[in-house]
Every structure is written in C-alpha cells, then in structure tokens.
C-alpha cells in the first residue's frame, strides 16, 4: 500500500513540476494513445449482441472464446510460423551482425544504413516487390520456365511459404540490430583471454561469445517475434485464403465479422505479451548496467 501511495505522491509532484508547454504534449499522448488503448481493453470485456451491437455487460467471455479450439489452433499455427521465421532471421542475421560488428570506420555505419534503406520505402511496396518476384507471373517463375527447369509455374505465393518469406524479409534488419549491439558490447579481451587459455575458435564461440550475448539476443528476438504475431498485411497479401493467421483473424473480427469485443480481446492479449517483453528488456538492461558498474 505504501508503495502505491508513494507512487501516486511522486506522480502528483511530477504533475506539479511539468511546465505549461509540456502539457499539450502530455495531454495529446493521453488523449490519442492511452485512451484509445483503454477503449480496446474496455471493449474486450463487453458483449456483442446477435445483431452486432455492443452491450454493456461486463464479462470475460471473449477471453474464454480466444481459448476455444478454433482460435487455439490458429494461435498455435501462428506461434509456430513466427517462431520459425524469427529463428531463420536469427540464423541469417547473425553473420550479418557479426560482419558489421567487425568492420572498422565508416563501413560500419554505411553497412547499417545499407541494411535499413529498403525499410524506409513503403511497406506495401516491399510486399509488392516480393509478389513481383515470386508470383506465378513473377521473375523467378519466368526464369524457371524460360530455362525449362520446370514445366508449370511453382506456386510459392499464396501459400505458407509466401508468408514465411514475407516475414523474414520485413523483420530481418530488426534482429540484426540487437545482435549487432550485443556483439559490440562484448569485451574483445574476453575472447583473447579465452584463446590464451587454450580454447579454439569454436569453443570460444559457444562458451564465451554465446553466453555473453544470449540475453540481448533473446530480448531482441522477442521484439521481432511479437509484432509478427499481429501481422495483418503479410498474411493477407502473401498468404492464401486458407491460411489463418492470428493478426489477420484479429483484424477480420473488426471488419468482416463485426465482433469488436472479440477482436479487442485478441488485441489486448497481444499488447499484454508485448508489455511483458518490455519488462523483460528493462530488467535485462538494468542487470547488464549493474554488471558494467561492478
């Protein structure tokens, strides 16, 4: 209790010290981010009538429905796909991060910039690029047909593989950065010490490098993994109609099924997982900060 009281006291003092100019910004954040977010949370406890209206009747049914077999299956499928995509990003991203961390001088920054420029072109365009390459009429199939490697176009798009490629394409750099910064923080003398003590390169990698970066890499992976679960456009444009994906199922609750309370429950669950990852990250930062101080 006293903790809560302290907390509200400190909030009050903070509120008093905030200068007038900052109030615009703070009110804007409360109005345009916090309140809409709580509308979603609140909506998840309401009920939908048969006619698609919302009834103000507080209940947890939407959360129970989320754990219904149908949605559970979607959830498991989505978790699995996102897990494989995150792992693939890690496998491909690690050498990239390693290469960048080893570079000296301007190439370091240039490499990072080179990696990120495609991500500042529009998201839809990146998806369209993948469609142009992998579609039935796409470059890949045109070439395969031209060189008579196949007789009929290979179907990659509108399957699970399409979603998988789309996920890797769009999330890869966001995993390179945390791995890169974990490698950067690694004290080079640690590796030297390991060599001096007679460890080989492989032994050093598994016994010195990996244990020292694993937490940073894990948290970085979470921040790729969680948004993947909520991905809507990638499964919509690259996946087939049959492929149910969590983010798509969630958005469809709002637009086609007209079941806002259920969609809100899914959105709330996703945000809670995200917040959980944030807490993990903070704890990790604090830990590594203390380790440095000591």
């Amino acid at each position, binding site marked *: 209790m006293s903790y809560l009281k302290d*907390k509200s006291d400190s909030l009050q003092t903070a509120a008093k010290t905030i200068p007038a100019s900052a109030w615009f*910004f703070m009110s804007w*954040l409360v109005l345009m981010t916090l309140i809409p977010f709580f509308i979603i949370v609140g909506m998840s406890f309401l009920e939908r009538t048969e006619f698609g209206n919302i009834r103000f009747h507080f209940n947890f049914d939407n959360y129970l429905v989320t754990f219904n077999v149908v949605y559970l299956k979607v959830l498991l499928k989505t978790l699995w796909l996102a897990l494989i995509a995150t792992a693939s990003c890690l496998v491909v991203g690690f050498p*990239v991060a390693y290469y*960048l961390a080893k570079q000296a001088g301007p190439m370091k920054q240039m490499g990072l910039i080179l990696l990120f420029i495609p991500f500042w*072109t529009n998201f839809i365009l990146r998806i*369209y690029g993948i469609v*142009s390459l992998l579609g039935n009429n796409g470059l890949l199939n045109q070439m395969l047909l031209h060189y008579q490697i196949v007789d009929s176009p290979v179907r990659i798009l509108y399957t699970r593989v399409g979603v998988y490629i789309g996920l890797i394409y769009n999330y890869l750099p966001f995993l390179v950065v945390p791995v890169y910064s974990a490698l950067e923080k690694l004290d080079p003398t640690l590796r030297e010490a390991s060599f001096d003590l007679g460890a080989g390169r492989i032994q050093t990698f598994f016994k010195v490098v990996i244990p020292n970066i694993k937490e940073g890499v894990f948290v970085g992976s979470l921040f790729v993994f969680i*948004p993947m679960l909520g991905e809507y456009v990638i499964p919509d444009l690259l996946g087939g109609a049959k492929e149910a994906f969590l983010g798509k199922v969630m958005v469809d609750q709002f637009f086609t099924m007209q079941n806002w309370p259920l969609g809100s429950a899914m959105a709330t669950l996703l945000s809670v997982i995200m917040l959980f990852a944030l807490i993990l990250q903070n704890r990790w930062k604090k830990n590594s900060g203390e380790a440095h101080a000591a």
Partner: protein
Amino acid sequence: MQRRNRLVETIFWLVIAFLYLPLFYVIFQAFLVDPHNWKSGFTMMWIIKLFDSPSLWLPLGTSLEIAVISATLSVSLGTLGAVGLTPIAAMLPATFQTLIMLPILLPEVITGLSLLLFFLLLRMELGFWTVVIAHASFSASFVYFIMVEQIRKLDPQMNEAARDLGAKPNEVFWKVTLPNILPGVMGAWLLAFTLSFDDFLISFFTSGAGLTTLPLKIYSLMRIGVTPELNGLSFFMILISTFLVLILVSKEQSRKWVLKG
C-alpha cells in the same frame, strides 16, 4: 581465418542483395512493355501515360497534404513537450517515460485498431483529418526523443543569461532556445513527414472509404492484380521514399532513427 571472414562477408552481401532485389525489380518492371515478361523490351509509355492520369496526382497530393500537416502538428507537440520536460527529465517517474514510449512500442496494428475504435466512438467521420491526427499521434513521440537530444546539447547557461537580462519565459523560448534547436526541428519534421508519407497500416485503418493516399492506392491496385499503372505508381513511390531517406541519413539528428526503423 581468412576463409571464414570471406564467408561472413559473402553472406552479408547476399542478404543485402536479397533486400534490394524486389525493389529493383519493381523499378525495372515499370519500364517493361509487358510487365509479365522480362524479355519483352523497354518502354517509357507507361510512365508517360501515368503523368496524364488522375490516379497518380490525386493520391500523391493527398499523401503530401497529410504528411505536411501531420508533421507540422507532431513537431509542434513534440518540441513543446521536449522543451518543457527535458530540464525535469530526471524527476519524471517511469510511468511518464512509458507513456511517451507507448506510441513507438505498440504494434502498429494495435495503434491503428485502437484509433479506429476511438474515432468511431466519438462519431468522427473517417477521412482526411482522422488520418492526419492518427499520423501525428505516433510521430509526436519520435519528434520528442530527437528534440530531447538536441536540447541536452544546449548550454543551460544561455537560458539563464537570457532570463537574467530580463527575458520572459516566452521570449527565452522564441529568441534563445528555438533558434538554437532549429536544425533539430527540421530533422524531426522530415522524419515525421517520411513516417506519414510511407505509412500504410495506420492510414488503412483510419481513412474510411473515401480517402486514398498513395500507399492505399497501390494496395487497392495490388488486390486487382499486376498492371502497368501499379508498376508506374510503385516506381514513383520508390523514388520519393528513397529521396526522403537519403535526406534523413544525411542529417545527423535523424540518422540514428533511420537505423531503428
């Protein structure tokens, strides 16, 4: 040793190729006589045709208007916030920090859906202004963090000196603080502009039926299928986006944010 490094380097360049290939092919495709045939020869016809067509100019205009207004709005809000909060940043409880980070951290789908519900419950008509507000709602926090860095670099004695010489708080802001952080303000504005211009998902949720930005137009054409018009529009969009990101990278204040995506 040497061979291993060569391998890592090769993987790096292969990844870069993988990331750029789709975009380069989209550009290439815009000049093909038959977009479904890479050997069909080149033509400028589609691009020229597009210049006469309202399907380029209307969405482009809408996108630019939204980006300019929302960037200006978010820069005003974020800069005011940073000017007010930076001096007392150490005293702010973690709750405040989290609130400021929230628009950056929440998955875009959640931001879009929550704003959609918010607008619908307020019975606001979805369209131009809801998109402007929605864009400013996430970019204001980006602006805030850029501006905090700029203000930290300032010498606090400058403000004190101005006050000692009799300037009112308003005057201190307009005559001392603002001129000194102006390069930062411009960098932040460009970043907010780019975020808005490139945004698809938030616009998709908050635009309603009537409004079409350039990314929304590309999306709706994509659902129909590959057409020369789609290829032409994509070509223009890539040109503009690349131009914007190159400016962002060249500016010290915004470069860091480009790398965070």
